[in-house]
């Protein structure tokens, strides 16, 4: 199986879908001539030309709004946000219009838009560039929210996202762009709304997604080696629709749960998960559900402190031991 970076995997997904469906277009700031702010769209302009790969002004409200309108008329736009942090400029377009139009038109109008870009902390870009809005997005009925952790998932999920008829928000991670992994060749889709058990275990379930999957897997290794604890890591992959069945099956197996998320803790994805798990699996729990999140403060500028603000393998390990106490 070929080994690709997370960045290349996303690029391959875009290229394959551009090839497959003439309605697919890529739009965003610097996606064309500059080959992408993070070089995700490198080479696409040369291959598909300026009608399919379109540079936009620095105006999220404007170009996301355009993409939403185009998608209602049959175009399948894949819009790049240089940072997901800028989604709030286009909040109305994304969450008031795109999210609601299928419902409000009585199913007559679909909005098959994909909005993608990085949403993560850890790169010392400051509080205004480090938002992780998957909880805010997923709070809106009518949308789908995807946060891939590995190159293979990134490719397969993006292909599914582009073919989906609802707005799909695809949250990447600048730190993962260079990560390498095996990616199946060809037209392999990863379905939306299906979690993946990235590591099987019997003593503790870590439910997580995005970069925290990697932290959790690293912590799981240490827990196995140093504490003789067998950890199961469930990668949600899609935040909404949420594959609670896979989570519950794992909880029924291990009876202890740690949720790990790169999220501010208040009203986060983890809050929702904790509610759902206790509601459905109360009698399976041998300890209170625990959660490790980003420390509740604006993203900290100082590099060494930001590392500690975010989940990291050491913090995951510590939290895991607390659940196992």
């Amino acid at each position, binding site marked *: 199986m070929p080994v690709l970076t997370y960045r290349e995997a996303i690029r391959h997904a875009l290229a394959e879908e551009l090839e497959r469906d003439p309605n697919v277009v890529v739009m965003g700031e610097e996606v064309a001539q500059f080959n992408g702010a993070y070089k995700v769209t490198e080479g696409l302009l040369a291959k598909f030309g300026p009608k399919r790969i379109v540079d936009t002004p620095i105006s999220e409200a404007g170009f996301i709004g355009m993409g939403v309108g185009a998608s209602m008329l049959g175009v399948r736009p894949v819009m790049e946000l240089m940072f997901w942090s800028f989604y709030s400029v286009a909040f109305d377009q994304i969450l008031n219009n795109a999210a609601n139009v299928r419902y409000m038109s009585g199913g007559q109008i679909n909005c098959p838009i994909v909005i993608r870009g990085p949403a993560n902390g850890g790169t010392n870009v400051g509080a205004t560039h480090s938002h992780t809005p998957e909880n805010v997005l997923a709070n809106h009925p009518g949308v789908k929210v995807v946060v891939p952790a590995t190159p293979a998932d990134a490719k397969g999920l993006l292909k599914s996202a582009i073919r989906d008829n609802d707005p799909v928000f695809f949250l990447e991670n600048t730190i993962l762009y260079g990560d390498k992994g095996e990616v199946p060749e060809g037209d392999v889709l990863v379905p939306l709304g299906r979690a993946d058990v990235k590591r099987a275990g019997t003593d503790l379930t870590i439910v997580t997604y995005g970069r925290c999957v990697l932290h959790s897997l690293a912590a799981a290794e240490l827990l196995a080696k140093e504490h003789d604890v067998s950890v199961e890591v469930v990668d949600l992959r899609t935040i909404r629709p949420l594959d609670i069945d896979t989570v519950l099956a794992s909880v029924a197996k291990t*009876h202890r749960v740690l949720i790990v998320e790169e999220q501010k803790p208040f009203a986060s994805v983890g809050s929702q998960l904790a509610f759902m798990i206790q509601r459905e699996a109360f*009698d399976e*729990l041998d300890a209170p559900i625990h959660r490790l999140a980003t420390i509740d403060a604006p993203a900290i500028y100082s590099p060494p402190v930001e590392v500690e603000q975010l989940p990291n393998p050491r913090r995951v390990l510590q939290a895991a031991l607390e659940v196992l106490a």
Partner: protein
Amino acid sequence: MAQIIDMPKLSDTMTVGTLVKWLKKEGDAVKTGDMLAEVETDKATMELESFFDGTLLKIFAAAGSQVEIGAALCAIGKPGEKVDAPAAAPNAAPIAGAGVANPGPGSTSPATTKPAPAPASTPAPVAPPPAAAPARASGERVKISPLAKKLAAEKGIDPSRLTGSGPGGRIVRADVLAGEKSGAAKAAPASGASLPSGPSPFAKGPIQEERVVAVSNMRGAIARRLVESKTQLPHFYVEIEIDAAPLLALREQLNTGLEKEGVKLSVNDFILKASAEALRRVPQVNGSWEVAASGQGQIRYFGAAHVAFAVAIDDGLITPVIRDTHLKSVFQISTEAKTLGRRAKEKKLKPDEFTGGTFCVSNLGMMGIPRFSAIINPPNAAILAVGTTVTKPVVKNGQLAIGQTMVLTLSCDHRVVDGAVGAQYLNALRQLLESPALLLV
């Protein structure tokens, strides 16, 4: 030590009772059987009977006040004895007597309905010696994880006897498993063990811990209703032995055919069906003795057979009802009985699923009991007790042969059903069960 008398649950739907009037006042001497007060429930006004001898030391609930079930009404003890103020009434206490410190065995149901004769000789229990101290004071909250709690219930382990190894002393799964291994924390059967699987033949030491336990609502209801039945209903019993071979053969044949569909008919399914069909043939059994408003006795005959069947559950039994059994096929009855039985064991039956039966079947066949006689479940007029099928020598056509037999015992309320009618009913039942194809047409 003074006995605290608390508000008993006097009807299935009662949550509070009104203390209408005290019939004794503080300082009065009280004897077992004396009426202490009048209590009005949602259904009737009843007299609260004393199960103790002594002096009425203290009245906690004023006349006219509404008192939650389980809340203290008064204290009885030696003259001059000091009485502690009762604990606050637990909210919607599920068990009469819960929430009151150290309830004596009699304090859980100190009232009977008016016409019920007092038990012949209720011993006035002297305050019993305290039971061997459990790990925690009774009523103290046990910190236990939901999983450990469920596991302990399944394994019949009393969590109050476990030591928690989790944070803050929380009992976790590992503690339950360790407790099971050591066998130290086996709960008393009364507090929820499942049906006996037989004790270890090597067990030594005391049979069980000596103790007094407050009874559950269910056990209270069983006690009340069956005392009422056995003391008020003139029971008589008729018994018949049937040839069970045709029934067993038919069942096996049907089950082989139904195996693919995941259906397995039980002997009891056929008996439920047959008992309903027999009621069609001898409908006098499908009745109920009543007292008219005038005080005159009357008998109500039912047009439909709603056959109930007894299901053993933790700490008691319940009788779910198959409505219109006479209209249903064996297959339908089987499906319904399975669902009801499961829901009964999960204690999830709704009231309308265990009330309104017109006839009842109790089957101990699966436990190897060859024959027994059951107590009628009022307001039914009869109950059928079903024994196990026994392989034994029988005489067939003047020859000894190996037969399979089953004994059916009908308990009848003689006010409604006379001996000849009971006999007719059992004969009808025998005919149906010995030619079981009749049940399929």
